């Protein structure tokens, strides 16, 4: 295992797009070569070393390469985009599109993460230890099919559109969510351990959503099917009693998804 340590040193007055920062691109390169890889700031490309100090060489393959980003990079976008293997550890906050369309490997963000992490991802894992913004694990604009595999874990809160168009894989939110969590999902699993504000599972045609906390505004097109307790989805356990709903009957598509909401926290439903 080879560690490449990037320490933010540059001027991030404008956001930087650094899709080049993946184990796939770093593998087989020396620290020097990695520093020469190009990133975008505005309409021009600059060497990575203008923004980060680079320490350590890449491993022989992506699998053997770990990238450690030693600092906050909320204004650096697309870290880990399209990565297939290896590991990225961000010891701080990460910018938009982190792990976008990744197919393998692991990303750990110790701080918060901006919107669109894990868009259209097909495999691998993203673990955000802080909070996340919008569109986590969501499909791109206009697409009805987003993430198909892998796992995203957010220890804190996420805001809106979590897992839009999810077709496979899992998203686990330790905290709360706001709007449209699981909008139009057709497969996969979303677990929200905290509360949800509204429109959970809107337009869903498949897949499963579990809400452990309270849903403030329930989505109208769901029908109660019964009560189940101690849910288990492979290694994911959701203890307690849950009301089981199917829906969304607001849309004509034949497929329906399953929505579990905690009995304790949603007495009025």
């Amino acid at each position, binding site marked *: 295992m080879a560690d490449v340590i990037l320490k933010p040193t540059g001027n991030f007055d404008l956001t930087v797009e650094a899709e080049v920062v993946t184990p796939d691109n770093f593998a087989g390169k020396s620290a020097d070569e990695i520093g020469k890889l190009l990133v975008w700031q505005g309409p021009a490309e600059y060497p990575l070393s203008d923004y980060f100090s680079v320490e350590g060489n890449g491993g022989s393959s992506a699998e053997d390469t770990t990238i450690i980003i030693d600092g906050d990079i909320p204004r650096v976008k697309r870290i880990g985009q399209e990565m297939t293997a290896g590991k990225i550890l961000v010891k701080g906050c990460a910018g938009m599109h982190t792990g976008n369309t990744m197919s393998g490997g692991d990303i750990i963000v110790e701080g918060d993460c901006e919107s669109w992490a894990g868009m259209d991802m097909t495999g691998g894992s993203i673990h955000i230890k802080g909070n996340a913004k919008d569109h986590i694990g969501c*499909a*791109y*604009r*206009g*697409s*009805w099919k987003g993430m198909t595999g892998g796992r995203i874990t957010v220890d804190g809160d996420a805001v809106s559109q979590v897992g839009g168009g999810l077709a496979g894989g899992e998203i686990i939110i330790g905290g709360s969510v706001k709007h449209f969590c699981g909008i139009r999902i057709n497969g996969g699993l979303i677990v929200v351990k905290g509360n949800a504000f509204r429109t959970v599972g809107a337009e869903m045609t498949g897949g499963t959503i579990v809400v452990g906390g309270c849903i403030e505004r329930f989505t109208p097109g769901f029908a109660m099917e019964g009560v189940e307790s101690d849910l288990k989805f492979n290694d994911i356990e959701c203890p307690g009693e849950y009301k089981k709903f199917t829906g969304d009957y607001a849309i*004509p*598509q034949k497929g329906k998804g399953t929505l579990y909401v905690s009995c304790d926290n949603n007495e009025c439903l």
Partner: protein
Amino acid sequence: MAGTIAIKNGYVYDPLNDINGEMMDIFIKDGKVVTELSGADMKDVKEIDAKGKTVMPGGVDSHSHVAGAKVNVGRMMRPEDHYRHYQKKTPLAHSGCGYSVPSVYLGGYEYSKMGYTTVFEAAVPPMEARHTHEEMRSTPMLDMGGYLVLGNNWFLMRYFKEGDLDKAAAYISWMMRTHKTYGIKCVNPAGVENWGWGENVGALDQANIHFEITPEEIIKSLTELNEKLGIPMPVHLHANNLGHPGCWEITRDSLKIPKNVKAKPNTDVEWAETKKNAKRHESVYLTHCQFNAFGGTSWRDFESGVKGITDYVNNADHVVMDSGCIPFGDATVMTGDGPAIHDLYVLTGHKWSNTDVECECGSGVLPFEYLKGNPVHSVQWAMGLEVLLYVKDAWKSIMTTDSPNGGPFTKYPQIIAWLMSNKARQDTFAECHKWAQDRTDLGAETREMDLFEIATITRANPARTIGMSYRKGTLGLGADGDVAIYDIDPKSLEVNDYESIIRGFENAAYTIKAGEVVSQMGEIVAIPEKNTFYSDIATDEDAEKSMLQDVKKWFKYYTLGFERYPTPDKYLANPTPIQVNAEK
């Protein structure tokens, strides 16, 4: 010297001049084909060595959806179609994006890279003509024109009902001039008006609501008037019931309606020299035959109905048609046939856009993906090829995908490969749902088209059909200096290696427009001037006057004032009127 060029030693395919792969030189001076260049010309001429290459007239697409309101609806509603398919700007070329519905710059470049120089937009709603022209004006690399949608026009339906064909004729010629369009498009006659109430028509003799006119009457009147007016192209007909199992019968019956209408295109133009008669003799041009040739009675017993149509066409002289092939993959269906797209929405539940245009027509748009594993789609793939292979005389058919309905025009090279190589077809059968074999006869078809036939169905015949062969689709003396040179050596071409056909047609070695190299092996190297053609039909002044009185009176049903209705010249790139002489 701009527009002057010598193309040496290529294998030339010029079907209108019966030139079938002869090694010869092509000379172009000042943008036009000439027999030779003088010594002075030769001194600073650009010379292209086309040895071992295929030389054809620039490609002509007589049916594509590349400009206008509904195409733009497709672009606007499909960011997911664009974000992975883009092109960066270059010092010369604009950037763009979009796979099945590319932005205009990208669309123009992509056509040019494939050797095309002329593309006609197949559906222009009159009220949206300014929009269509804006987009055509911005589309680089191509000479263009558009067909005016008239099959459900209130004014015409009322004139037809009242039997006032003189005023109808005056109206059509006024509309062509007003909106700077080229020919007549007729989409689901009588049915689209019914869609204004959420209905359709299902039979040729079914009268529509209120206007009480039948598809048959509309087809008959439009085809007759088309010839009375001397319009360069036949009526472009999109028959009723499109996309419904069993629709092949109504299509065949629709084709029978104008069988006694004699073609009389009458234009004041100078004709390039051709050995063959370059004028059309057909009174109807059936569009996207495949979509109009569904057999069976339901999706369960769905099958190809192509034979029913091609049998008729093989024995008729008044029909020409384009195929509407399905190359599989992403597409965006878009048509003036609003109810047909509603039916697709009911079937798929997908994103669906619809725009009905007051007093005139309508349209629908829906994203679509054709899958090899889908039984119906696999049959449709085979049907599109059946259309082209079963029509014995290549001069009766035109290769299209009804882009982007069957798939984007960028898939043309793939279609050519299927037409030229039985092995290509058999290999695809192996990947398809078995319905492709079971519900069509394509599996047994062994015909392999040669380059001469490909040149016929991709340039010579589209140009001839729409009356543009006076300057397009041929390399005869006086023709436009539009040439495509493909890196395909006919002498060593092995059709079993069909990938080489695809590669060869995907990126022309050279695309030459008006004697200037505009793209080269997939690179845009020059942005040429372009022309926009339209029919300027001379009409009887009195008839026009009394017709306009009616039009102004009825105009209150529009939400746009009469004064603001026309399409001014400024919306056209090099407006090029073609003088058309109506029968007196």
